[in-house]
């Protein structure tokens, strides 16, 4: 069977996400190396450029994956297995690839400095905004009544709002700090998880016997709670910037609501996992990993939601552990979607990438996050409570950074094996019928 433009675009976007993810893993490893003792490239290969490049790759990777998943989700809801405007999708997809290439080149050449939370320069952000609107319109016009597609669109809309907030002019540094925290929070904690949860519920129907009604109900209830949890996560850092009792009170609700939202999502996933159908892809495994990452992050976040603790934790690796693990939950869903869509485009619901990369990635991601959290705990007690200097504490936790680096190597190996499997078992036209 010949693949439709929608199928090719969705697969291309997911493949792009995978390539960007491997590049992100590689840059993250180089970033981690800079935390180990002596660094001969300390000033010639500055940390902030590498860190910025890694963030650019992560953002483009996640958006590519979510867009690819969204396109695939929409086309499977249609009889013709294509979007409503395939010709437009083809051009939007191609131009998206151009944006990705330009952004990666810009990051590699150190041209994207200056906006650390959002990373992309203003022209790139405007281009990103336009692409998100176009993709959202293409997908909504193809399957507007499908509940997972609706939630996915709300997630992408939140991403659009986040980018717009980041582009607004500011009149003072407090306003800029507030704006940056809110913009990145909306993107990271509301947009990404909403779109990913939509994908996750769509995937549950592929590997489980759950009914469409159950999926529709589940995706709305979980998405609603996750949106509230995302808002609470977004305002958490503001307690350090604005001295406001009302914000402190509101963020305290996060102690209960953030873990509750993700535990309810995990319970839904558990129900789907308990009622498997005959599909043998690893989408279920990846979703389980994603849920684990989110639940652990939600527990970290519940601690951070206490204003009196947040002021001690802000700026430590504990916060980074929370961010990395949360984003990895989203990435796990994307990898699950890539696994499932690739298998279906090959004409079967068989494994595409195997268990080895899954376990390597799971071990690498969870271990690296736990080690970062340990480093963060040491920082809180030694740097924030015992007043030992930042540089001295950093030297004391080099052993933790060494283990973190090893975990990232394992993660990278897993991602490379996943990428190779994904490429070697790529769908070829004429391979068979696409299951819907």
């Amino acid at each position, binding site marked *: 069977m010949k693949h439709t433009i929608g199928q090719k675009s969705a697969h291309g976007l997911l493949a792009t996400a995978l390539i960007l993810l491997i590049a992100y893993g590689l840059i993250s490893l180089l970033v981690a190396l800079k935390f180990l003792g002596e660094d001969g490239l300390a000033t010639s290969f500055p*940390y902030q450029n590498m860190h910025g490049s890694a963030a650019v790759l992560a953002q483009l990777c996640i958006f590519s994956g979510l867009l690819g998943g969204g396109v695939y989700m929409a086309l499977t809801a249609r009889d013709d297995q294509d979007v409503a405007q395939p010709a437009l999708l083809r051009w939007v997809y191609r131009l998206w690839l151009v944006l990705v290439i330009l952004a990666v080149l810009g990051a590699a050449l150190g041209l994207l400095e200056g906006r650390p939370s959002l990373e992309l320069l203003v022209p790139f952000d405007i281009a990103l905004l336009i692409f998100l609107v176009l993709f959202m319109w293409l997908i909504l016009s193809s399957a507007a009544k499908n509940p997972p597609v609706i939630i996915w669109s709300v997630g992408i809309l939140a991403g659009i709002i986040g980018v717009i907030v980041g582009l607004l002019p500011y009149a*003072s540094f407090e306003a800029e700090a507030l704006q940056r925290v809110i913009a990145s929070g909306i993107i990271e904690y509301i947009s990404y998880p909403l779109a990913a949860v939509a994908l996750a519920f769509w995937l549950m129907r592929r590997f489980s016997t759950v009914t469409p009604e159950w999926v529709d109900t589940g995706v709305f209830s979980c998405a609603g709670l996750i949106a509230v949890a995302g808002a609470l996560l977004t305002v958490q850092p503001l307690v350090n910037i604005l001295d406001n009792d009302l914000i402190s009170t509101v963020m305290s609700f996060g102690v209960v609501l953030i873990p509750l939202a993700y535990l309810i999502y995990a319970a839904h996933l558990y129900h789907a996992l308990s009622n498997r159908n005959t599909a043998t892809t690893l989408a279920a495994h990846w979703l389980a990993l994603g849920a684990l990452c989110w639940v652990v992050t939600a527990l970290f976040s519940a601690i951070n939601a206490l204003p009196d603790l947040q002021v*001690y934790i802000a700026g430590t690796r504990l916060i980074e552990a929370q961010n990395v693990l949360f984003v990895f939950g989203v990435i796990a869903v994307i990898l699950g979607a890539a696994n499932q869509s690739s298998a279906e485009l090959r004409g079967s619901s068989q494994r595409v990438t195997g268990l080895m990369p899954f376990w390597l990635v799971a071990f690498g991601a969870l271990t690296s996050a736990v080690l970062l959290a340990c480093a963060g705990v040491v920082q809180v007690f030694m740097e*924030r409570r015992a*007043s030992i*200097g*930042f*540089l001295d504490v950093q030297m004391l936790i080099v052993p933790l950074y060494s283990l973190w680096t090893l975990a990232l190597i394992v993660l990278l190996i897993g991602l490379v094996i996943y990428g190779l499997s994904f490429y070697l078992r790529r769908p070829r036209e004429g391979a068979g019928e696409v299951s819907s």
Partner: protein
Amino acid sequence: MRGIRLFFVVCLICAILIVALPIFSFISSSPPEQNQAVLHGQHIWEANNCAGCHTLYGQGGFFAPDLTHIYSQRGETYIREFLFNPNAFHPASARQMPRFSLTQSERDDLLLFLAAVDQNATSFPPQMINVSGGLNTVVDAVPAASQAVEEVPDDPAEAGRFWFVRPPAICGTCHSLEPDVVLVGPSLAGVASRAETRVDGQSAEEYLRNSILHPSEYVVEGFNDVMQKNFGDVLTADQINDLVAFLLTQTENDTEAGA
């Protein structure tokens, strides 16, 4: 299905309100108009991607120290010197800061920006975050910028006292002159009396000079070898002589030891 959709919409409205709350709170507090120089300083901060490594209010990179209160911790003179040649200050650290080619006016505006952040941050952090060492009383040790242009006294001991708290020596960052007050290195109150007995065959003057030029050769018990190793390059011969002369006045009987 209608009920669950309504639940989703209500949750979405709650999420919007939660995010909007700090924005309205900030706007209603009517923050004062920002000085243009401060905004320019902020632009320099962003253009050089300082937040790629440092944090302000706990937001930013995790590679270098939080700078929310660096202005009051280190003082203007120290930061100005640091920005000019950052690697002279923490040569033993693996975290080397790139040397940014900032003009004088850019440094001025960046300092104004850091001063404004320092003044604004009332809730973060709950206690000082030190860059290095144990405690930080540099605020008292670093003189105001206006004093930095004072002439160096002619008397070697007074000149040494002058350099003790000023760049490029700025010994007071790590060493107290108060008895038993440990900053990073040992207190230098009464050091002239102890110096004679530290190393066999070395006079007090030789020991002090050697401690400045080769700090690793004798490390006081209970302390780590973290002292800057490049004072031989950073300081002139006169400055070293002046510092030694000043430290030789720090005897245990000297009432000035606690000055």
